[in-house]
């Protein structure tokens, strides 16, 4: 599972460059994310704009990562493509997670919130 890391101040932007977070890659994704995020990160933006498909394993991995990072390192999502967005909506996970239209929108909000 390919993850691209980039800092915007204290915000870590993690871009998933694989087109799928599915049963074949969810464990890898969760491990990769855990290793990628240092304690200095005050906020994490997960850029999913290159992800074309997610299934319930991928969804579970994102929920698990969000819970593991906890309220002090909020994980926020950005750039959901249509199929991915519909899975979040279908499972109502869109009402529990913070989702931004784009990565820049996510960073703008992060900057405004300090």
């Amino acid at each position, binding site marked *: 599972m390919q993850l691209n890391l980039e800092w915007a101040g204290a915000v870590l932007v993690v871009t998933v460059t694989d087109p799928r977070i599915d049963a074949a890659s969810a464990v890898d994704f969760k491990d990769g994310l855990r290793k990628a995020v240092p304690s200095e990160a005050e906020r994490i933006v997960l850029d999913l704009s290159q992800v074309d498909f997610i299934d319930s394993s991928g969804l579970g991995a994102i929920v698990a990562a969000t819970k593991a990072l906890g309220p002090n390192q909020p994980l926020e999502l950005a750039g959901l493509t*249509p*199929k991915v967005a*519909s899975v979040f909506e279908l499972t*109502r996970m869109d009402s529990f997670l913070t989702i931004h239209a784009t990565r820049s929108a996510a960073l703008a909000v992060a900057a405004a919130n300090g």
Partner: protein
Amino acid sequence: MGEESCAPVRPTRHDAAKPPSVRVILPSTPLGVRKGLGEINTILRASGYSQEECGTVEIVLAEVLNNVVEHAYSAPGDDLIALQIGPARAGLSFLVEDNGREMPEGGPPIGKLADKHSDLLSLPEGGFGWFIIREVAHDVAYRREDGRNRLSFRIAVG
């Protein structure tokens, strides 16, 4: 699980799609499922289904097939899953067959969702699969026959 309740992955209706009759056999492994979904997507696109409709089929099949890999068979090996796709009165019909263990309660789980009022930290990290299936698919039926699991359902696309 009526037509009304599946708003987010709403099937669009048009006349172009021609339901294929096809059988797909795939390895009971995460990568086998991924590859099979790719083939089915190609077939459905070629049959005139929209990208959105293919996405609807893909998410349901992903959940059904990954459940077989993870729960029906003990460990990924040489086991196979057989899938039949054909025309239905309204949409496409699907039949998924495997030689793995029987469904725990003699039938597929209800599939429930997190409580609206629960907070992030109490969210479940799994168990979304059957909720998605029941939310999007229709006429879900399960039977155990000749040591085989047979799960059939319909998806309202086309």
